[in-house]
């Protein structure tokens, strides 16, 4: 028999990091779409840098909120996030290869690569968190 505790466990309150990291991804998607919409011309970088900074800040806020959790399955989080990161390093590597292959250079490449870094970090955090939040620490 499933106890009400198990139902409560499934619905326990956690910091809103999923929403924050999805927002971070959305800001990156917006920035990449903005830059790509100007290709092959060079887009004004101000809005893209603004989106990048906002995405990075939101990502870090999520990490800080999660780091303050005591009752959390950190071991499982690191395990899942680590393997997911490996997969996203491969994906990000492919995208970076496409940037360089397509002769993206200078400040645009720096901004695109920085966006790629944020993009690469958010999914492992999201997957690791979603798995670990349902794991018991004891």
């Amino acid at each position, binding site marked *: 028999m499933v106890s009400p505790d198990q139902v409560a466990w499934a619905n326990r309150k956690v910091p809103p990091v999923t929403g924050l990291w999805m927002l971070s991804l959305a800001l990156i998607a917006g920035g990449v*779409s903005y830059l790509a919409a100007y290709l092959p011309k060079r887009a004004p970088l101000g809005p893209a840098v603004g989106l990048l900074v906002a995405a990075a800040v939101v990502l870090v806020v999520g990490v800080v909120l999660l780091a303050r959790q005591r009752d959390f399955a950190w071991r499982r989080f690191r395990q899942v996030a680590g393997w997911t990161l490996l997969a996203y390093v491969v994906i990000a590597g492919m995208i970076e290869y496409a940037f360089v292959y397509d002769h993206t250079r200078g400040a645009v490449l720096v901004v695109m690569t920085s966006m790629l870094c944020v993009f690469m970090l958010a999914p492992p955090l999201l997957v690791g968190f979603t798995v670990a939040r349902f794991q018991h620490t004891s």
Partner: protein
Amino acid sequence: MVTRSGPAAQGPTLFSTGPAVSVASVAAVEHSLAGAAHETPERDAPVEILPVKALPFVGVAVAAVIAAIGTNSTWALDFFHVAGGGIWTALDLFLGFVLGPILGRMSIPARIELTKKLMPKLVLIIPVLVTMTLAAGFQLARHNGMLDTSFSRHAWVVASFAVVGVMAVIAIGLLEPANIAVLFELRKPQPNPAVIEKLMRRFIFTAGITGAMQIGTLIIMTRLAS
């Protein structure tokens, strides 16, 4: 023995409009799980998170996409974009609008059995299809001059960026984590049915949303190609 397996006995399903998971429905799920465990010895086998045997196929697919981009082969880029996009779209629509409602009406043990078999495969299939489609599509658009702002239908290209961006955020933020988390839950000696119900509801719901958005993608892509 499974004593309560019909839809009427299960209480709220994945698509119910009532409370997310009632205690009564969870109790029924637990009862069904316990019964099913006695009936099927193979249930003791741990659930596979990632089908390791399929990884070489993933490696070949990724290498082929890299080669297609590296050689700028129009046929290869077309193949990966059209074939990958077609399968991805069909799979999303199938999961969201065909399998999702069916899953919601299945008995709990059957639902869990299907989930255990289906989800590990989706962990590999969907990301590979998405990577193939997007990487080949972007390179193809660049190669054909569709990315150029002077292209007469450039607005449609930008619209496709927006649609894909939204789909990617939903898929990466909600769908994929739910897929993996449900597999971890199923690996536990005593999975919590409330957690499985919550995660599967999220998975099917987000698959439905991305499936609906795929219709928008189809409209955009056929506008660009015609």
